[in-house]
């Protein structure tokens, strides 16, 4: 059963780098506190079970989804009887996930009522400036909405959100709530506002996405320092009008909660039916055209490099990747005029 009115909480914590046990205990404390606030869903920041600048520790703190630690996380989301009725509880954790073929992902797990329901593997791994994720993590290759006891949702992790296509896809996959666990460093001193410049940009993004796609954004950032890099906190819950329902402290630990009523998305979508008017065919056709053009340019450049006498790769390697061709609707799928 889906509940359209529920309370979301964000645990803005400062995890200990590389210390899963201590961080698990922190998770358990915050889960108790959040339930005390009447939360139905609790979101933890990106990699908050392990800390962020893991470097060579990635493989030593990684957890398989069948590990005892992940079972402890699942247990945190078990139903607890509140007065006479047991309420559904959801929890999002940030871990290093190890797969059967020994890849390591920067993953966020959604648990509900004691079971793992959805895994999002970070698709955009920042590897520039102070970030080095591409060196240590495998890249997620899926952006999927999922059904939960609190309506359809999606999880995007930090940098994922800096690529507008991710939120666009989540919205078109019918998500009404986007959860964004994040580990966003404070940087960019400015005299224009009390906070650092990164905080300003994130707040702009969250509010813009919420309003543009008429959905809730639950942004969960962390605080504390790792090797002198601070994290700015400022977690927030933004409604489909772009209005902040709850805002956490900047630069300090906090626990915030807000009541979400999914009907607010309905109201916004009645007023501005932007998603209804999205033209998928237009978008996909243009993206296919752009991909074919870029592939053709790449294979053209490669062809120039091979001179007579060089061993050429098999023809199949030089052709552009096969595409499904321009989008066509299956018979019977055509919209009625």
């Amino acid at each position: 059963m889906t509940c359209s009115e529920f309370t979301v909480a964000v645990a803005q914590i400062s995890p200990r780098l590389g210390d899963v046990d201590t961080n698990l205990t922190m998770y358990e404390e915050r889960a108790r506190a959040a339930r005390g606030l009447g939360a139905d869903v609790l979101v933890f920041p990106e990699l908050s079970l392990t800390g962020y600048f893991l470097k060579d520790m990635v493989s030593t703190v990684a957890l398989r989804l069948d590990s005892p630690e992940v079972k402890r996380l699942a247990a945190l989301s078990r139903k607890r009887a509140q007065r006479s009725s047991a309420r559904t509880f959801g929890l999002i954790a940030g871990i290093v996930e190890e797969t059967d073929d020994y890849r390591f992902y920067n993953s966020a797990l959604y648990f509900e009522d004691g079971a793992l329901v959805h895994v999002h593997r970070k698709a955009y791994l920042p590897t520039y400036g102070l970030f080095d994720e591409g060196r240590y993590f495998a890249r997620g290759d899926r952006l999927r909405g999922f059904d939960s006891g609190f309506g359809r949702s999606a999880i995007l992790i930090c940098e994922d959100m800096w690529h507008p296509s991710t939120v666009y896809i989540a919205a078109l996959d019918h998500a009404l709530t986007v959860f964004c666990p994040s580990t966003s460093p404070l940087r960019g001193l400015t005299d224009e506002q009390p906070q650092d410049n990164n905080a300003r940009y994130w707040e702009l993004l969250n509010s813009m996405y919420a309003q543009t796609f008429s959905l809730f954004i639950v942004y969960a950032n962390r605080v504390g320092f790792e090797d002198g890099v601070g994290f700015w906190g400022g977690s927030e819950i933004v409604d489909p009008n772009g209005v902040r329902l709850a805002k956490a402290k900047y630069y300090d630990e906090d626990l915030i909660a807000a009541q979400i009523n999914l009907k607010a998305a309905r109201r916004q979508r009645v007023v501005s039916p932007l998603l209804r008017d999205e033209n998928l065919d237009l978008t996909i056709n243009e993206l296919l055209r752009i991909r074919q053009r870029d592939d053709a340019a790449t294979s053209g450049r490669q062809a120039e490099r091979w001179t007579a006498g060089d061993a050429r790769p098999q023809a199949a390697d030089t052709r552009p990747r096969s595409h499904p061709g321009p989008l066509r609707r299956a018979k019977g799928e055509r919209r009625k005029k």
Partner: protein
Amino acid sequence: MKAATDKAASAGVQPLAIPTNPALLQRILTAFIRDEVRKVGVERVVVGLSGGVDSALSATLAAAALGAANVLAIKMPYRTSSAESVAHADLVVARTGIPALEVEVTPQVDAYFTRFPDADNMRRGNKMARERMTILYDHSARWKALVLGTSNKTELLLGYGTLYGDMASAINPLGDLYKTQVWALAAHVGVPDAIVHKQPSADLWKGQTDEAELGFGYAEVDALLYLMVDLRYSRAELHAAGFSESFVRRVGDMVRTSQFKRRLPVIAKVSNRTIDRDFRYARDWGR
């Protein structure tokens, strides 16, 4: 057409002035000190107090972060140190209420140079800085404390400091602040005016001032470094912004040739896993 071009140019121009936002800096840096000190399992720091604005600011921030009783200031004058420096260090001690200790470095420095009497000012200055470092580290062990750094971004970028001397510390709250920002923050947190407004000097010999020794002013070099380092201006863009070719070249060379001071010693790689190359861990590993 001209108006349109000007408008387009001004729309894309980044602010040239170095932002200071002292209220935010104070908040970040006190939180930084508290967090990075306590996660190591200690409560205290020791700081060498010279009477200059950098160490005055570091000590003041630490007192706010950890409580005055948890900050030990060590004054380490040499016989040629100016009386004003010592007086200014005392001013900081009085203002912050932190405990202080004086350990004059004259005997150990002079004992050494009786064997090498021809040493120039630079060698003597470096020796003093390194003697002070050994005193700070000894007291950090005695007092279960971390050594608090006082080097700012300007001097770190220019290499205007003594390697393993005043550049040595466990944590440094000022390393990402240009001197211009140090001044603004020092004024904001209540470092006495006499210290904020005086000519900066390493006080390694009589009459020494940083700006005379460097050959340019902090305000001028900070403006250049901010564009060069933080905003990644090209040489052509720096000239267009009004900096002379020779100044840009000189400062660029200082940054480049002092890179060694900002890194660990070069390690010859022979194994598959070499420290800091393919053996990579955060300093806060398990903290």
